[in-house]
């Protein structure tokens, strides 16, 4: 499946099933579009009619370009057929009931009262609660016992506000460190915090034990303080930004995300991202709000074209800043074209409800953090395991090929079928389509790949910010040498 688009002066062609990315000129762009359904003569005629007055275009040139297109087709870099559907359920089938990641809701309470909180101020539409160490320990034992041969186990301390239950967080981490060697596991911990309770001890411990920290900041002070307020109604920006700066500096400026949420009230969210960057933060994320339609903060249909323009503006500004060595990363624009995920990762879905689950403070299991509070989606608990097998199967069969509407979508190998929670909340069905989210997702991927193309075309111009540590990404696309005699005969994947 091909996707062709123009952005920031580049003509870009994605051959989605091979993963190939081509940066072409306008003539090749048109030839590639015509090639599947037109004869050589028809293409030459059409190109001469459109470009014949240009000095660099003549019949021989066009025939040469058609030959190049044919070469790329023969070498599975253009028009690669989609043969992956039979593999879509295979990975989860092979994995069985293996669980490798838990979102640990250590605190269903919060010291902020953010208006847009999808977790309803941490309570998830239920009672306030704090996870005991006994529950957390059992959750970790449950994880290890169900992790099969997986070595890397992920635990995210989530809430509410997890720092309100910091002692249990530390006890849990210490417990895991005490068992991981003997169990043959490697725990990776993350914590998502609003920052209010950060102090020197927490900074030291986070920077020692957390492979990543997600810090909630919405950007501009007036935007942040409009929604991220305490129970007295006071904004939190002034209190948390100095703490975040201290934590990030102590962390060596890596392995963190400054994560914001934008709403209908700040569709110009790029200004919030730029504010984060101007504050000195370099690893940034900004997400569309998740809330019910009709909510004053909910994104509207009229917002959609504005948001798409904002994503383009963001990509262009990121490149502009990279020219001066002042670049930053944006989570959704981090695409590693050379060392990114394999096809199984790309087609098997996000893993919610199967390899990934959320644990409530009292030990119930849910498919993911966004389903917590939806009682009909409770899968079981950490003592008895998953007991609602039929419910779990709804998630087991979520993948890039599960939704008929995705069949012709060029982006399905980038989203793996999308977010089941978003689909459920938008349509009432985990296999539904949250089209609004899809449109934003496709725009983000277009922008992300455009940045890679810019890096490849102008390697001396841009100086991308490089993220560090264990999530190092090979940012900066590179041009490939296409060998004359690439041998595809040993690969069974495409037939």
């Amino acid at each position, binding site marked *: 499946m091909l996707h062709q688009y123009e952005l920031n002066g580049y003509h870009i062609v994605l051959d989605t*099933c091979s993963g190939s990315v081509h940066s072409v000129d306008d003539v090749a762009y048109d030839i590639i579009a015509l090639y599947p359904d037109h004869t050589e003569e028809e293409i030459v005629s059409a190109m001469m009619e459109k470009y014949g007055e240009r000095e660099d275009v003549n019949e021989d040139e066009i025939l040469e370009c058609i030959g190049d297109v044919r070469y790329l087709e023969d070498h599975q870099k253009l028009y690669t057929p989609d043969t992956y559907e039979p593999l879509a359920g295979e990975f989860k089938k092979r994995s069985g009931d293996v669980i490798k990641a838990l979102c640990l809701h250590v605190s269903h309470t919060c010291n902020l009262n953010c208006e847009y909180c999808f977790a309803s101020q941490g309570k998830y539409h239920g009672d306030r609660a704090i996870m005991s160490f006994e529950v957390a320990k059992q959750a970790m034992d449950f994880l290890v016992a169900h992790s099969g041969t997986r070595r890397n186990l992920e635990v995210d301390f989530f809430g509410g506000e997890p720092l309100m239950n910091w002692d249990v967080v530390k006890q849990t981490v210490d417990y895991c460190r005490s068992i991981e060697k003997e169990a043959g596991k490697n725990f990776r911990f993350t914590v998502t915090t609003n920052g209010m309770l950060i102090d020197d001890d927490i900074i030291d411990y986070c920077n020692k034990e957390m492979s990543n920290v997600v810090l909630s900041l919405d950007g501009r002070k007036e935007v942040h303080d409009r929604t991220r307020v305490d129970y007295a109604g006071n904004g939190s920006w002034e209190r948390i930004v100095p703490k975040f700066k201290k934590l990030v500096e102590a962390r060596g400026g890596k392995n963190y995300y400054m994560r914001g949420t934008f709403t209908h009230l700040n569709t110009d969210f790029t200004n919030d991202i730029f504010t984060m960057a101007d504050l000195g933060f370099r690893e940034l994320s900004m997400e569309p709000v998740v809330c019910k339609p009709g909510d004053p903060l909910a994104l509207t249909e009229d917002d959609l074209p504005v948001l798409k323009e904002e994503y383009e503006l963001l990509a262009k500004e990121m490149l502009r800043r990279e020219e001066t060595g002042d670049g930053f990363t944006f989570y959704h624009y981090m695409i590693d074209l050379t060392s990114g995920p394999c096809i199984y990762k790309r087609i098997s879905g996000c893993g919610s409800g199967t390899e990934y689950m959320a644990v409530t403070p009292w030990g119930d299991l849910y498919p993911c953090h966004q389903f917590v509070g939806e009682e009909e989606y409770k899968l079981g608990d950490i003592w008895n395991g998953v007991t609602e097998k039929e419910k779990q199967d709804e998630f087991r069969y979520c993948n890039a090929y599960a939704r008929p509407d995705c069949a012709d979508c060029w982006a399905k190998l980038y989203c*793996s079928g999308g977010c089941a929670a978003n689909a459920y909340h938008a349509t009432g069905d985990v296999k539904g389509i949250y089209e609004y989210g899809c449109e934003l997702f496709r725009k983000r991927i277009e922008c992300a790949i455009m940045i890679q193309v810019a890096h490849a075309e102008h390697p001396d111009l841009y100086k991308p910010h490089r993220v560090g540590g264990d999530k190092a990404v090979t940012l900066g696309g590179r*041009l490939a040498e296409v060998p004359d005699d690439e041998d595809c005969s040993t690969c069974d994947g495409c037939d």
Partner: protein
Amino acid sequence: MSRINTLETKNLCESAKNGGCGECQTSCQSACKTSCGVANQQCEQK
């Protein structure tokens, strides 16, 4: 190829043969928590 520049990319076709170890990061255990994207995940076998 004078009109076409091809970027260096992972061979998805080849990854169908050797991939699927399951060790890479779960999509939502990262920064977003509210949407799904697998393209920015990292392969543990690189």
